C-alpha cells in the first residue's frame, strides 16, 4: 500500500459520508454527460453504463482496508453479540477468566521461584558449591577450608567466594532494626558479577576495614535513594561501619530461601568481632565448622562438569574428611538449598497441573456453550448463506467472535491473576523452604498465561464454529458433540476431585494425630539478646506474668533445624538434629519426659555438661538400651556430655519430612558459649497474641538497643508445615467444584435442549399412553451414561493426579478403592440428578397443547 493509498483510504474512512457522496456524484456526472452528448434518454444512458449500484460498491470497496476492515466489522459484531446475550457471555467468560487468571498467577510464582534472574552476571558461568554426604544423601553447608580448596583450582576458577547470612541489629538514622546481613569473602562481588549502581563493591583491600555495601531496597526505603548514603555511618551490632556502595535493584543475594534478602554486605573477617564469644574463632582452619555457602565463577569455556571433575581430583589428593565431598551445581539449580529443589518443583508442577485442569474445564464449558448457541443461530446462518455469504466468510466471522470472547476473558483475567498473586504472597506455602520472592506482577508470566489461554479458548471454539457454519447438519450429531464435551468436563472434574478428596482426607487425619507436644496457648517471640544475663533476666520477668516461659535456640517444631555429628563410641559419628534449650522447655511445650529429667536451671556454664535425647535418638544411638548415664560427644566440643533424660518424640509436619520421628538432641542453652538470636516460648494465661504487648515491654526494658521481638503463635507456626497441603487442598477443591458445577450445568442444558427438540415425539408418546415417569427416566438414563462415561474416562487422569500430588505434597494419602468408588458414585448421581431436573418438566407437558402448536 503506497503512502498516497493510505492517505486516501484514511480520508475515506474518516469522512465516510463525504466520500460516498463523491462516488455517487462522479457516477451521476458520467451518466449526465452520456445523456447529453449521445442524446440518450436517462434509462438508455444507464443501460449502457451497467449496474450503477454495483459500480459504486466496487469503488467504495477499493477504498476499504480489505481484511483489516472485515476483521474490525467482525470484532464489532462479536462484541454486539456478547452484549445481547449477557447470560451466555457471563457463563462463558467468567470461568475462563478465573481459570486463566489462576494459571497466570501460578506461572508468576513458578517464574519467581525457578527462573527470574537473581541479578548475577553470566549466571551460566557461576557454580554453587555444597558439601555433600554420600552416606546420608544430604547436602550440607561448607567450611572455610572447603572454600580454600574450591578456590585453589585457579586453572578452572576465575574467582570463588564464601558467604554467611546472619541477622543483626543495625542502627540507621537514630533507629535500630533487625536486618539480614551477608558476611562475604573478598572476591564475593567479583564471583557474583554484580556491579554496584552507586559507589563501589567490596574489594580484597576492604577485608578488615569497617565498610559495608547496601542493598537497593535499603537505599530506597531508608535513604530515599539519596547519593548521600555513600559515606554515611551506621552501626552493626554496635560496631561503626561506613557505607561505600549500593547494589542494583535486582540483586537480592544468591539464595532465595535463607531468611530475608540481605540489606547489607560486609567482610567475613568481621566474624569474630560480631560473635566475640563464639567457639569457632578459628573457623578458618576448621573443617567441622560448616556454616558457609559458596559460589565460584568459572573461567570462560569451563563448564560445571569440568569444575566438578577438578574437585574430585583435589579430593582424591588431599586428606579431607572422607564422608564429605564437594558438589558443584549450576547456579540456575542452586537458587535455593538443593535438597528442597525437587519437592518444590513437584509442588509447583502440581499447582500448574491443577490450574491447567481449570483452564481445560473452562474451555470445555465454552465449547459446550458455543455448541448450544450454534443451534440457536441456525436460522441466522441460513439467512446469511441465502443472501450470498460464503461459508469461509461465516467461519472467519465465528472464529473472530470466539477470539473476541476469549480476549474479553483474558482482559478480565488480569485482575484475577493479580489478586491470586497477592494471595500467594501471603501464603507461607512452604516451611523449610521459605523463599523471599519478588512476587510483583510479572507481565512476562501473565502474558504467557494469557496467550496460552487465548489460543486454547479459540481452539475450543473451532469445532463449534464448523458445526455452526456448516448447515444442514443433523441435530443429532450436534447433540452428540455436546454430550462429548460434557463428558470431557465430567472427566476433568473427576481428575481433580479425587485429588481434592485425598487431600481433605489427609488433612482430616492429620488433625487427629498426636504431635507429641501441646501447641495450644503458646506464644513465640524471636529476638536478639546481648548476653546470657539478659536471657536469664528476660525469663524471670516473663515468668512473673505468664504460666511459663523457656528459651530455645531455634523455634519448635523446628524444621529449620540444626544438625550435628555425635559419637557414642570413638570414631563412629552419627548425624542428629539438635537444639539449645533453657530450663522449663519441656514443661512449656508439655513434652513428656519418659526417663530421667529435662533441662534444669542448674545446667549452666561450668556445671556438668549434659544432654537430653528423644526416644528416636535413644533408639538410634543405643539401640533401645536405656541411655541414662551414657556419654556422648558433640563434634567440636572438648568434653563428653552425660545423658540425663529421654523425651517423647515430636512430629514435625512439613513438606519433605520423613514419616518416622527425627532423632533429636537437646542441649542446655546456658551451657552454650554464645546466646544471641533465640526464640522465647511463652505459655500464656489467655490468648497467646494478647501477651505480645507485655513481652515487647519486658524486652524493651531489658534490651533497649535491639529490635523488638517478632511474635507468632506456636499453633500457626507449627501449622505452617501443612501450608502446602492446605494450599493444594484449597486449589484442588475450588477447581473440582468449578468443574463439577459447570459439568452439571452442561448436562442440564444438554438434556433440556434434547427435551425441546423432541417435544413432538414426547407428546405423541404421552398421547398414546406412555407414563411421564418412564419418559423422564429415559432422559435421566442419558445423564447416567454421560456421568459414568466421564467419570470412567477421568479415572486414569485422576490416578495420575494423585501420584503427582503424592510426590509433591509429602504425607498426602492414597486414593483407595473406597474413595474412588465414592467420588465416581457422587459424580454419576449428580449427573443423573441434573438430567432428571432438566427432564422433569415433561411431567407438566400437555400433549394436546404441543401437538396443536406443532
Amino acid at each position, binding site marked *: 500500500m*503506497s*503512502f498516497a*493509498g493510505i492517505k486516501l483510504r484514511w480520508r475515506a474512512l474518516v469522512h465516510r459520508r463525504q466520500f460516498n457522496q463523491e462516488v455517487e456524484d462522479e457516477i451521476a*456526472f458520467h451518466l449526465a454527460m452520456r445523456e447529453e452528448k449521445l442524446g440518450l434518454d436517462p434509462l438508455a444512458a444507464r443501460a*449502457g*453504463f451497467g*449496474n450503477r449500484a454495483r459500480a459504486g460498491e466496487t469503488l467504495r470497496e*477499493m*477504498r476499504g482496508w480489505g481484511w483489516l476492515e472485515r476483521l474490525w466489522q467482525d470484532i464489532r459484531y462479536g462484541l454486539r453479540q456478547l452484549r445481547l446475550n449477557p447470560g451466555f457471555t457471563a457463563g462463558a467468560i467468567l470461568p475462563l477468566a478465573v481459570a486463566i487468571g489462576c494459571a497466570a498467577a501460578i506461572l508468576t510464582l513458578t517464574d519467581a521461584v525457578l527462573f527470574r534472574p537473581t541479578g548475577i552476571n553470566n549466571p551460566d558461568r557461576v557454580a554453587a558449591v555444597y558439601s555433600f554426604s554420600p552416606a546420608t544423601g544430604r547436602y550440607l553447608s561448607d567450611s572455610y577450608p572447603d572454600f580454600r580448596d574450591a578456590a585453589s583450582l585457579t586453572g578452572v576458577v576465575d574467582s570463588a567466594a564464601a558467604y554467611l547470612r546472619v541477622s543483626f541489629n543495625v542502627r540507621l538514622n537514630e533507629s535500630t532494626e533487625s536486618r539480614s546481613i551477608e558476611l562475604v569473602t573478598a572476591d564475593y562481588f567479583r564471583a557474583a558479577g554484580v556491579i554496584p549502581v552507586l559507589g563501589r563493591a567490596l574489594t580484597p583491600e576492604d577485608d578488615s576495614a569497617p565498610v559495608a555495601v547496601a542493598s537497593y531496597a535499603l537505599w530506597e526505603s531508608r535513604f530515599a535513594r539519596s547519593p548521600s548514603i555513600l559515606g554515611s555511618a551506621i552501626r552493626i551490632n554496635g560496631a561503626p561501619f561506613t557505607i561505600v556502595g549500593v547494589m542494583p535493584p535486582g540483586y537480592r543475594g544468591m539464595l532465595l530461601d535463607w531468611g530475608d534478602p540481605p540489606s547489607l554486605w560486609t567482610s567475613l573477617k568481621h566474624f569474630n568481632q560480631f560473635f566475640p564469644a563464639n567457639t569457632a574463632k578459628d573457623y578458618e582452619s576448621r573443617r567441622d565448622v560448616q556454616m558457609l555457602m559458596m559460589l565460584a565463577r568459572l573461567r570462560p569455556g569451563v563448564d560445571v562438569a569440568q569444575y566438578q571433575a577438578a574437585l574430585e581430583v583435589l579430593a582424591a589428593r588431599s586428606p579431607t574428611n572422607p564422608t564429605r565431598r564437594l558438589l558443584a551445581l549450576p547456579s540456575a539449580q542452586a537458587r535455593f538449598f538443593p535438597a528442597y529443589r525437587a519437592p518444590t518443583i513437584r509442588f509447583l508442577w502440581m499447582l500448574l497441573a491443577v490450574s491447567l485442569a481449570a483452564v481445560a474445564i473452562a474451555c470445555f464449558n465454552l465449547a459446550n456453550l458455543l455448541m448450544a448457541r450454534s443451534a440457536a443461530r441456525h436460522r441466522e446462518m441460513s439467512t446469511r448463506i441465502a443472501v450470498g455469504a460464503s461459508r469461509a466468510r461465516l467461519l472467519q466471522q465465528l472464529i473472530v467472535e470466539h477470539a473476541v470472547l476469549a480476549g474479553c476473558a483474558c482482559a478480565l483475567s488480569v485482575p484475577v491473576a493479580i489478586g491470586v498473586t497477592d494471595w500467594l504472597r501471603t501464603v507461607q506455602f512452604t516451611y523449610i523452604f521459605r523463599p523471599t520472592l519478588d512476587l510483583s506482577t510479572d507481565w512476562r508470566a501473565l502474558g504467557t498465561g494469557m496467550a496460552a489461554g487465548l489460543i486454547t479458548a479459540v481452539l475450543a471454539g473451532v469445532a463449534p464454529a464448523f458445526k455452526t457454519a456448516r448447515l444442514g447438519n443433523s441435530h443429532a450429531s450436534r447433540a452428540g458433540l455436546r454430550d462429548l464435551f460434557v463428558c470431557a468436563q465430567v472427566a476433568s472434574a473427576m481428575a481433580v476431585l479425587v485429588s481434592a478428596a485425598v487431600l481433605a482426607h489427609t488433612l482430616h487425619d492429620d488433625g487427629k494425630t498426636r504431635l507429641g507436644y501441646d501447641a495450644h496457648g503458646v506464644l513465640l517471640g524471636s529476638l536478639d539478646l546481648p548476653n546470657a544475663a539478659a536471657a536469664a533476666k528476660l525469663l524471670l520477668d516473663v515468668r512473673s506474668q505468664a504460666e511459663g516461659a523457656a528459651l530455645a535456640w531455634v523455634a519448635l517444631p523446628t524444621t529449620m533445624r540444626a544438625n550435628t555429628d555425635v559419637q557414642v563410641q570413638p570414631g563412629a559419628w552419627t548425624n542428629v538434629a539438635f537444639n539449645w534449650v533453657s530450663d522449663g522447655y519441656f514443661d512449656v511445650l508439655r513434652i513428656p519426659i519418659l526417663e530421667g529429667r529435662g533441662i534444669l536451671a542448674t545446667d549452666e556454664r561450668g556445671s556438668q555438661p549434659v544432654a537430653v535425647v528423644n526416644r528416636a535418638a535413644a533408639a538410634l544411638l543405643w539401640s533401645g538400651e536405656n541411655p541414662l548415664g551414657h556419654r556422648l560427644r558433640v563434634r567440636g566440643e572438648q568434653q563428653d556430655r552425660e545423658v540425663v533424660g529421654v523425651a517423647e518424640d515430636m512430629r514435625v509436619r512439613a513438606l519433605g519430612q520423613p514419616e518416622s520421628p527425627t532423632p533429636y538432641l537437646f542441649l542446655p542453652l546456658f551451657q552454650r558459649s554464645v546466646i544471641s538470636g533465640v526464640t522465647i516460648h511463652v505459655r500464656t494465661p489467655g490468648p497467646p497474641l494478647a501477651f505480645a504487648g507485655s513481652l515487647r515491654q519486658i524486652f524493651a526494658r531489658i534490651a533497649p538497643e535491639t529490635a523488638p521481638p517478632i511474635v507468632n503463635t506456636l499453633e500457626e507456626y507449627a501449622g505452617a508445615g501443612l501450608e502446602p497441603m492446605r494450599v493444594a487442598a484449597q486449589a484442588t477443591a475450588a477447581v473440582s467444584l468449578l468443574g463439577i458445577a459447570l459439568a452439571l450445568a452442561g448436562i442440564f442444558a444438554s438434556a433440556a435442549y434434547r427435551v425441546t427438540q423432541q417435544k413432538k415425539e414426547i407428546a405423541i408418546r404421552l398421547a398414546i399412553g406412555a407414563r411421564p415417569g418412564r419418559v423422564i427416566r429415559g432422559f435421566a438414563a442419558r445423564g447416567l451414561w454421560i456421568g459414568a462415561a466421564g467419570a470412567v474416562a477421568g479415572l486414569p487422569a485422576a490416578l495420575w493426579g494423585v501420584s503427582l500430588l503424592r510426590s509433591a505434597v509429602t504425607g498426602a494419602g492414597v486414593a483407595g478403592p473406597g474413595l474412588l468408588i465414592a467420588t465416581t458414585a457422587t459424580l454419576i448421581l449428580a449427573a443423573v440428578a441434573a438430567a432428571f431436573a432438566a427432564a422433569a418438566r415433561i411431567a407438566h407437558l400437555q400433549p394436546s397443547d404441543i401437538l396443536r402448536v406443532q
Partner: protein
Amino acid sequence: MLVLKTLARGAKHGYAISETIFETSQEDLRVEEGALYPALHRLELRGLLGSEWGLSENNRRAKYYRLTPAGRKALAAEAARWTRMSVAISRVMGTA
C-alpha cells in the same frame, strides 16, 4: 497506460477520458465505463493520479484527474516498455 497517456496533456474528468481514448484511437478502442472508474481509482490509490473537483464545460461539478510526478514517470516507463514489446512482437510477426 492509455489512461495515463490521455492525461499527459492536462487534467480531465472521467467522461472526457473515455471520449479521448475512443476518438484518438479512431473509434477502435472503447474503454468500458464499468472498468474505467475502478481503473482511475486504482491509479489514484497507487499515487499515479491526483484528483480535484472542478466545474465541467457545461457547468457541472466534475472530478478532474491529473498526472502526479510519479504518474508521469510511470507513463514514461510504460511507454518505453510498450514500444519495446510492440517492436519485438511485430518483428516476430514479420519473420513468421
